[in-house]
């Protein structure tokens, strides 16, 4: 169900097109205006050679200077009309296009905000970014230059054909005789260019991915002196990109001249046949000149059409990907039915025989059951990969359980409105995510109701104030991209302050202090004691010392809760926890040596 990059549309797909046109619907009035402008503009364009023909036959040939002047005024009028129509057409269509893109972009982003975390596991951010930016731009090209002017081109084409037939149908047939060849050449061109375009797209994506990764990891490349190697890799992709592009030149270089030659052929035939008939006085010279002009204009829309076909094709491929994303079902819709549930429960949490697998039946959690009473502080320990983070992810309903249920204040998390469920939690993750903005906007996030005072207090509680106060603009100091100018520990302190500022009923900490020095960590824990009094706390830690004074400790091993109890009870049990504890003296051989014998 992941959103693929390499979906290539067949060029024109009626269901896709219909869906795209849906977006046009609110602007139907404008579309009609633009349509009229296109028709009007095309007619005005068509009228110019016709007027020239008239001028030659009716006025110049019969020495009618007066008539020529009059006709000239018509010509001027038509020029002005054509200007007005063209202006209306392009501006209206592009404006409408922008509005539609605005909507598409908003729809995509809104949908992305509703999709669950699971979706993001499968779809790298880079790829999703392409949906919102590059793909939407491909649609933009279609709206602003492609589809709509295709109508103009078609009208032009058929208009010219009609006029030619009306002027002299025999000569018209002569002029049209090259059309089958044009159709054939265009089909050949399309086929080859499409395949080539797919390759180019793939290589551009590869180049961008490589660049993105190596710019982000440039420090590592430099540390290990691997510049030469990554340059070589980059150069190889770059070369392939160049070669595929050069190959595509061939098709373009051949196609355009072929169309030109066919146009000339048509012109030559007109001269031959038309001249013949002119000699026999069956065709006037004015008609002949007009025909030659029309046949020129007749080929212009054809080569335009093939150019636009490329744009259309790119847009189709892009919209296929965009709609694919929009059609990804939201697996955790907020259930509107239970939205009147009260928000302030005491914070009792129960896992009831929970099983969970990220993929198929590779169970990461097996039959996990426990209860956290309101106000209890629960520690979770276990080896890396044992499933600690997964427990927390299920609690916040990032994923839904495979079997069993999770109750928050007696209600299954699946019945809680997501928004209200998550409002009860404050989460601190090991990997800190900072947003662009200032220090204080990173603590407060979007909650305007958190005052500056509250921001400061939260920062103070986790001792982040010590470094914030030394920053040039204090809490208003801008945060660099990804917080690059802060130390890792400082970033963790900020995310800690964020959780406190939100004043949650349940605080969830996932190895939240791993990069913070022990002194500060101790101070934070003291602060938590006071701040979190009466609230439920879940703390994952890989260092036993940080959780030993918890009310209860859960020991997770290979997805199961193998032991549970207070620190003392667990030591007395002599099981996994005891073994985890036992290794400590090996690291600190001369400390107080809490050997098994020393344990009660």
């Amino acid at each position, binding site marked *: 169900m992941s959103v693929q990059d390499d979906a290539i549309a067949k060029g024109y797909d009626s269901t896709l097109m219909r869906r795209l046109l849906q977006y046009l619907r609110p602007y139907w009035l404008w579309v009609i205006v633009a349509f009229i402008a296109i028709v009007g503009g095309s007619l005005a364009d068509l009228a110019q050679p016709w007027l020239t023909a008239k001028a030659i036959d009716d006025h110049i040939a019969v020495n009618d200077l007066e008539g020529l002047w009059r006709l000239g005024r018509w010509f001027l009028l038509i020029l002005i009309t054509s200007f007005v129509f063209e202006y209306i057409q392009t501006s209206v269509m592009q404006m409408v296009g922008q509005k539609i893109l605005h909507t598409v972009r908003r729809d995509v982003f809104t949908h992305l905000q509703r999709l669950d975390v699971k979706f993001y596991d499968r779809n790298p951010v880079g790829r999703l970014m392409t949906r919102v930016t590059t793909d939407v731009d491909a649609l933009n090209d279609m709206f602003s230059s492609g589809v709509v002017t295709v109508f103009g081109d078609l009208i032009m084409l058929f208009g010219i054909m009609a006029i030619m037939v009306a002027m002299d149908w025999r000569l018209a047939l002569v002029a049209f005789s090259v059309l089958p060849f044009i159709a054939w050449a265009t089909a050949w061109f399309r086929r080859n260019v499409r395949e080539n375009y797919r390759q180019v797209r793939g290589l551009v994506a590869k180049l961008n991915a490589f660049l993105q990764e190596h710019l982000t990891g440039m420090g590592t490349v430099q540390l290990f*002196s691997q510049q030469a190697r990554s340059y070589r890799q980059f150069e190889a992709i770059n070369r392939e990109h160049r070669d595929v592009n050069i190959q595509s030149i061939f098709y373009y270089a051949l196609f355009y001249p072929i169309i030109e030659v066919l146009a000339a052929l048509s012109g030559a035939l007109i001269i031959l046949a038309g001249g013949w008939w002119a000699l026999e006085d069956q065709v006037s010279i004015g008609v002949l000149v007009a025909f030659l002009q029309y046949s020129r204009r007749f080929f212009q829309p054809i080569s335009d059409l093939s150019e636009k076909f490329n744009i259309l094709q790119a847009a189709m491929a892009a919209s296929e990907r965009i709609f694919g994303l929009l059609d990804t079902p939201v697996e955790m819709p907020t259930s509107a039915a239970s939205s009147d549930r009260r928000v302030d429960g005491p914070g009792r949490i129960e896992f009831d025989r929970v099983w969970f697998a990220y993929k198929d039946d590779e169970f990461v959690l097996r039959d996990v059951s426990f209860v956290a009473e309101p106000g209890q502080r629960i520690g979770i320990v276990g080896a890396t990969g044992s499933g600690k983070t997964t427990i927390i992810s299920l609690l916040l309903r990032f994923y839904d359980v495979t079997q069993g249920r999770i109750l928050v204040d007696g209600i299954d998390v699946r019945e809680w409105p997501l928004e209200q469920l998550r409002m009860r939690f404050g989460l601190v993750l090991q990997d800190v995510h900072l947003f662009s903005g200032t220090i204080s906007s990173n603590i407060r996030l979007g*909650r305007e109701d958190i005052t500056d005072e509250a921001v400061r207090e939260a920062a103070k509680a986790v001792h982040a104030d010590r470094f914030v106060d030394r920053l040039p603009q204090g809490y208003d100091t801008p945060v660099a991209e990804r917080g690059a100018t802060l130390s890792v520990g400082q970033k963790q302190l900020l995310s800690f302050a964020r959780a406190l500022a939100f004043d949650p009923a349940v605080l969830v900490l996932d190895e939240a202090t791993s990069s913070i020095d022990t002194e500060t960590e101790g101070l934070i824990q003291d602060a938590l004691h006071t701040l979190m009094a009466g609230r439920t706390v879940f703390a994952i830690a*890989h260092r036993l010392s940080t959780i030993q004074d918890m009310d209860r400790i859960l020991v997770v091993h290979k997805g199961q809760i193998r032991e549970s109890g207070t620190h003392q009870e667990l030591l007395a049990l002599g099981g996994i926890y005891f073994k985890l504890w036992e290794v400590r003296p090996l690291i600190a051989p001369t400390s107080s040596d809490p050997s098994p014998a020393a344990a009660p």
Partner: protein
Amino acid sequence: MWRALQRLWPYVTSARHAMLAGVLWIVLATAISLTAPLILKYVIDDLLAGATRATLALAAAALLGLAIADGVCRYWMRQRLIGASRAIEYALRNDFFAHLQRLPLSYYQANRIGDLMSRASSDLGAVRLMVGPAVMYFGSTALGFVIAVALMVSIDPWLTLLALIPLPLVSIATHVFGKAIHEKFDRIQAQLSELSAVVQESLAGVRVVRAYRQEPFELSRFGAANDEYVHRNRSLIRLQSAFYPSLSFFFGLSGLVVLWFGGSGVINGRITLGDFAAFSRYLVLLSWPLIAFGWVINIVQRGIASWQRMLEVMDTVPAITDAEADPAALAGRVVGRLEVRHLSFTYPGATQQVLTDISFSASPGQTVAIVGATGSGKSTLLQLVPRLHDPPPGTVFLDGVDIRRVPLERLRRAMGVVPQEPFLFSDTVAHNIAFSRDGDPPKDAVAAAASAAGLDADVSGFGHGFDTMVGERGITLSGGQKQRAAIARALLVDPKVLILDDALSAVDTTTEDAILRRLRDVRETRTCLLVAHRISTVRDADLILVLDGGRVIERGTHTSLVAQGGVYASMDRRQRLEQELAAS
């Protein structure tokens, strides 16, 4: 601007053969395509004067022949010129990337990756349009213009003059509009990158957004950026939609002039009807060059702006270079004796000094541990040794040589560094561990390094062992696994100096212990610099530095520091107390 173009010149001359050939084909093609109307003129005059079928056939054949010749020329023109532009693009992209590789870490901290990306892709694309298609269109345009005007003059100089009167308006319009369009376009690009940044940030932090229910806020942030983007686009649209129609309008005026004055010329007998037809044809031919001219001007304006943006990067002098390096420095075996003398450091562009007067030294087999509060400058100190940031001259020495005098590559190859936030590439586990080795990863060495870093058990659990892909297209490693992979990567270098920045913070206790024991062997022959928070990790170091606010406030061995009764001693007391409390 001239200076910028001068910088582009070498790239253009590198493809000079193709460029010259391309221009030659343009000349030929243009000359040929402009003779076609002449034939038209003779046909019409002939018809009026009583032509024969033979001359008609001749004219038709000539028309067709010319078109074929023209097509051949245009085929080669496109091949040569567009091909050259691709070659230039290729060279530029290579050089751009090569330069980026020379820029130090601080550059990447000060600039947005997304911004650099857009310079390497869309700006480069604009430059290519300038050196390829723009040259092509400009060539045929300028030539076509000159020849067409010459031929028109040969038919009727006065009529030509009259017909050309509206045309300067075209150029003026192109210039005025082009400038405004260009400015608007820049503003749109800036807003686009803003919009992308909002999306990027919101998607990358999806867990935080969900957990803190920031969806509505993110939507409103996005909405504002989206609105602004559309707003900026609209002002461009208003301009652009007036621009192109006004060009056609001016051409139309020329057509009108020709109709009036040319027509009366025919009536007066000044020119023939054939002249008139050919003249109209030329005017049509002229209209394309002039429209293309406006277009070319836009491409060139955009291309120059883009090229200047690329130059901003390419002209950034790398702050950390081999400029002061002595090629002979440490050319032989590196021992690994590290010395830091009175080192003070301020981040470039920052006001606050981060490190103040740090001194210590370490020989192979010795470990220097650094402890201290969050933000006290530990990572900064460690980053100065491999010159990720440059220390002031005469402060950091390897084997007695100022590291600024050691060629960068030699210096860094002597070191194995585990950063506090390790970065892994989306490649296999083996390739990541053997990142320091070019070519296929040596299996045994990779396995040995992985086992020393305590990663072996994890790896055997991955689907394809060491060949499992890491990152976006493979498995997601936990924080601890990432750290251990980074340790293995550093060990595989077989470094003289091992630098561990809080490298075990996300590893559980059992694993940490095991790794520390294995590392102890590694450390016996190497100089080791390590940052840690736990006393247990640092207690057997030969020298412990306690940093606070960038200064060393205490130094000594574990025993001497405990005896000293300062900050370190209280840290130790505190951590011991915790354990005792728990164990009692």
